[in-house]
């Protein structure tokens, strides 16, 4: 997995490169907008991580010119501007995801993984399978083994999102954004409660749990123990 990080703050850039390399990514670094554009244009990257405010050329215009040239590499924008309208501006400019600073590396990693999968992954399937858990997106049926499970509509969408990204960590913020379409930060553990409801429906009474809590990061659905 090849990653390009475009960030002008040397310290956070080095930290990111090191952290991504530790989890097995090949991470390149560009220190300003022009260099970033040149690298992104020439190299074959899976995901771009772009700081919004860069010297020489800002992040949004960088993405804009990449997209103009037909470069569709998924781009994640990092920004100190975390308000809703800034996010919308960022996504309109051609960004695929938007993460306000300061962020946790776990959150960034989870989002980058989802983006890289989206880029290279297969087309949307109609049925998701994880172990013996099966979710049919057309008929809205969910079954574990031979047992038919009854889910509330929102629980269905929650499970659908988790299963779409099976084997990947999804964070609470990602769930809130993608399942509920809220971009604010609840002060309570509201997502955890939804997850525990879902867990009691899909995992309770079964020997092998599928829905795992990843400490300090979020949740993951997968077959087997990590």
């Amino acid at each position: 997995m090849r990653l390009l990080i475009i960030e002008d703050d040397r310290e956070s850039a080095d930290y990111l490169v090191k952290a991504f390399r530790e989890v097995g990514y090949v991470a390149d670094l560009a220190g300003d907008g022009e260099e970033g554009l040149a690298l992104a244009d020439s190299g074959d990257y899976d995901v771009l991580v772009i700081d919004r405010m860069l010297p020489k050329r800002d992040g949004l215009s960088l993405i804009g010119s990449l997209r103009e040239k037909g470069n569709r590499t998924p781009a994640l924008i990092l920004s100190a501007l975390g308000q809703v309208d800034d996010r919308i501006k960022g996504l309109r400019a051609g960004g695929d995801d938007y993460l306000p600073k300061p962020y946790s590396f776990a959150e960034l990693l989870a989002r980058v993984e989802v983006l890289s999968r989206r880029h290279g992954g297969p087309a949307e399937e109609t049925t998701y399978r994880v172990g013996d858990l099966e979710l049919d997106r057309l008929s809205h049926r969910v079954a574990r083994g031979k047992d038919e499970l009854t889910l509330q509509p929102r629980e269905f969408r929650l499970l659908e999102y988790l299963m779409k990204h099976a084997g990947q960590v999804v964070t609470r913020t990602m769930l809130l954004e993608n399942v509920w379409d809220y971009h604010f930060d609840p002060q309570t553990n509201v997502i955890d409660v939804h997850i525990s409801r879902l867990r009691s429906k899909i995992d309770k009474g079964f020997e092998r749990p599928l829905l795992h809590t990843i400490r300090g990061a979020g949740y993951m659905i997968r077959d087997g123990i990590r």
Partner: protein
Amino acid sequence: MTAFGKLIRTTAFRLTLVYLFLFALFAASLLGYFAWNTRRLITEQITTTVNAETGEVSDIFGRRGLRGLVNTIENRALRPGANLYLVTTPAGQAIAGNVGSLAPGVMATIGWSETAYRRLDEQDTADHHALVRVTELSSGFRLLIGRDLEERRRLFGIVANAAQWSVLIVVVLGLGGGIFVARRVLRRIDAMTGTTQRIMAGDLSGRLPVGRSGDELDRLAENLNAMLERIEALMMGLKEVSDNIAHDLKTPLTRLRNRAEEALAKSGSEAEYRNALERTIEESDGLIRTFNALLMIARAESGQARGNMDDFDAADVANGIHELYEPLAEDDGMTLHVRTESTPLHGNRELISQALANLVENAIKYGKPLAAAQPLGADAVAAASSKEILIEARRAGGQVLLSVTDHGPGIPQADRKHAVERFVRLEASRTQPGSGLGLSLASAVATLHGGELRLGDAHPGLTATLAIPALSGVGDGLAAQTHDVPQKVA
């Protein structure tokens, strides 16, 4: 710049000069027209009289010959205030009349002319002027009849004099008035300038003087004062925020630092380090949340979030938040209900959702009946209902009301205004986690939409209501209205 220089540079003074010029011109041309017409009238009168008399006298000459002519002329010439008469022989010798001398060549010119003359009986040497007509009688005799122009000259003199005076008076009065008006305006402008300078120097409480006349300057002053009011409020808000940041962000920062220091000081096990680091991250996450909430409030209060307004149904927001928080409330032993009717709204959906979410979180956190105050098993029904939280979306008049009602201890009337302020956490809630920004964010969001956050009594408990005008978004209101009309027609 001298005081006078300042004075003549005022708009009022310059306008006065322009009007002054126009009025002087008007007065002068009016009098000029009058003078010219009068002169023409007098000349016409003289011409008529002289023509008539010439006809008469020629007639007499034709009927009674030279003797008759001379007699008539001598007679007429002797009357008081008589016209001028002169009869000359073909050789040019005067034989009758009252004219002593004439400008040379007058008698040679047949027809009208103006000439200086002297009467026969006059002693003074000053020349008079007259308008005369010379006619040739048969056999070479010439007759001159004319009239003195003194009258015409005097009249013209009077008019010219009047013209001078009136122009002078117009100029003096105009200049005086101009200076008076300009000085009045200048005084008020100077007062305004003085105040603005004081304000610029940092005294934000200064206000421009407003007179009672309600003229344009007063209205300008009023508007500027309203603007200053707003700026002062914003500045106060900013100061308050920085004070609060200083207090409420420094406290957790100090805690964070102490913890790191402590962990560093004592050589503990890896588990202890890990624990300390985890708590550090937790603490900084809390800080980030507080910081974000503060920024959000500041943005909402300054009106920057007015973009991103669209039309949606408040009922959807209420249902969405209910759906999100229902399991959490249940885990906490409370029941979350929702009651909605379709209520279209124009606004920032994300912000309104967040405001409502804050109210619900508050209700879940603080809306529990006090355990001690509720005697166990005293009234099972009351106890059950008191653990209910109701989210409502409805329309009342021109307002959309999004409310959250709990049956906890509520907020005493006296504390309600205070509760909305930033970082305020009422005594009862000190022990609970939270930044103390929930209500102020909700309030800022309501204000942004031209509405307000109302805190009321639910007997017992608290009803927190976001009251937002149905066609909200100050400035967007009109657009939404006009946008609404064709929809109704269609």
